[in-house]
C-alpha cells in the first residue's frame, strides 16, 4: 500500500444480484491515486465506471476488497463516520441535476459547508466563474450548474473530487471550460469517469475499464 495515495482500491469486487442471477460488475479492481493528480477511468457504457465512483464516494460497500482514503480503511466505518468522511474529504459531481432545486447557487454551495463561511462560498463561486450567486438551478445553464456543483464539491477542502461523466451533458466549448477549471485545481486529486477519450488529454493517469476489470 502506498501511504501517500489519496484513494486506494485493493482487490475490489462488486456484484449485483437480480432475479437470482449474479452479475459481476467489478472484478479485482486495484489502483491508487497520487495526490494532486487528475485521473480518468475510461470505458464503455456498462463497464462499471459509475460503480467505482459510488464505491470511492463511500456510498456503496465493496463485496470484497478494501477501499482506503488517505491510507485509512473504510469498510468498517459506521454510518456517521462514513458521512463525516464524505463531507470532509470527498467532493462529488454527477452528470446532471447536481443541485437542490429550491436553493440558490450560493445556498447550494453552503449546504454541506462545515465552517458556514459565506465569504469562502462566494470566493469559490467566483473561482468557477459564476457571477450571480443568487440564481436558482432552473435559471442556470448546464455548464453553470456543473460549475456550481464543482464549487460545492470544494467547499470543505476535500482531498479528492469524484466526477461521474461530468461533461456528458456539455457541448465541446463548455467541456473545455469545465475541464480547464478542474485542471486549475492544484491541491486536490480528481477521479473522473468518461467514455469521452478526449478528456484523457487533461488526465495524468488513465485507467481503461473493460467488463469490470482494469486492463
Amino acid at each position: 500500500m502506498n501511504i501517500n495515495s489519496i484513494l486506494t482500491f485493493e482487490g475490489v469486487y462488486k456484484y449485483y444480484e437480480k432475479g437470482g442471477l449474479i452479475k459481476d460488475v467489478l472484478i479485482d479492481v486495484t489502483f491508487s491515486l497520487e495526490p494532486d493528480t487528475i485521473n480518468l477511468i475510461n470505458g464503455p457504457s456498462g463497464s462499471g465506471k459509475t460503480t467505482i465512483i459510488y464505491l470511492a464516494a463511500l456510498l456503496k460497500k465493496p463485496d470484497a476488497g478494501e477501499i482506503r482514503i488517505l491510507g485509512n480503511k473504510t469498510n468498517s466505518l459506521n454510518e456517521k463516520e462514513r458521512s463525516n468522511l464524505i463531507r470532509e474529504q470527498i467532493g462529488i459531481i454527477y452528470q446532471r441535476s447536481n443541485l437542490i432545486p429550491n436553493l440558490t447557487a450560493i445556498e447550494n454551495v453552503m449546504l454541506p459547508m462545515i465552517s458556514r463561511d459565506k465569504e469562502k462560498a462566494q470566493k469559490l463561486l467566483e473561482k468557477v466563474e459564476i457571477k450571480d450567486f443568487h440564481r436558482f438551478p432552473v435559471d442556470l445553464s448546464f455548464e453553470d450548474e456543473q460549475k456550481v456543483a464543482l464549487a460545492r464539491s470544494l467547499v470543505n477542502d476535500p482531498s479528492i473530487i469524484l466526477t461521474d461523466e461530468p461533461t456528458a451533458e456539455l457541448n465541446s466549448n463548455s467541456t473545455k471550460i469545465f475541464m480547464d477549471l478542474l485542471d486549475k485545481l492544484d491541491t486536490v486529486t480528481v477521479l473522473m469517469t468518461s467514455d469521452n477519450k478526449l478528456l484523457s488529454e487533461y488526465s495524468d493517469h488513465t485507467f481503461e475499464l473493460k467488463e469490470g476489470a482494469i486492463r
Partner: protein
Amino acid sequence: MGIYTLPLNNLRRNRLRNLSAVLRIAFGVLILLILVSSGLGINSIVEKSGTSNGKILDNSSANTTTNETNIVNTAMDYLNSMFGSNFSENQLVIRLEGFLVNLVYILDGLASIALLVGVLGIMNTMGFNLSERKREIGILKSIGFNKKQIFISCTLEAGLLGFIGSLIGVILGVLAIWFISTFFAPGFLTILLPLWLIPGAIIISTIISLGLGLYPAWFVSEIKVEEAMLCEY
C-alpha cells in the same frame, strides 16, 4: 442554509399541496376549538347548577327568572303531550342533564375525529412531497448527510406543516368562537375557550403531524443513492 433549515425552505415548493394540507389541519383545529369550547360551555352550565340533582334550570333556584321557568314548563308540557309521558319537572331536568353530559362527550369525540382527519392528510402530503425528491435525497447523501440527519429534516417538515396549520386554525377558531358567542349564542348558553386549549391544540397537532411524518421520512432516508440518482426532478 443547513440541513435543518431546509424544511422551512421546502414549504415554498408544492405550494398548492402544502397549502391544502395546512388548510385541512387549520379546519380540524377550528372545529376542535369550537366543539370543545361548546362542550366546556355546556359542562359549566351543568356544574354551575349543582349537577345531577335536577337543579339545572330548576325553577326553585334563586337565579332562575320567571321567563326561564315558563320555558321549562312549556317544554315539559310539550314533551309529555308528544310522547304520552308524565315526567315531573325534576325527572325531566335530570334526563336533560344526562343528555347534556353525553352531548359533551359526543362533542369531544367529534372534535378529536375532526382534528385527526385534518392532520391525517400530512402523511399523504409528505409521502407525495418526498417521493418527488428522491434524487435530492441522493444528492444530500452524496455530499455527506447521513440517514439520521435526512430523517430528522424530513420529519421536521411534517411538524412545520402541522404547526403552521394549527396556528392558523387557532386564530380562526378564536375568531369564530368570539363571533358565535357574540352574535349567535342564546343568553343562557356559553362557549368557554380555556387558555390551555390554544397551546394544547397547537402542541397536539404538531406532535401528531411529526408522528405522521415519521414513516415517509424514514422511507426516503433509507433510499440508496444509486436508486435515488436514477430519479428525475
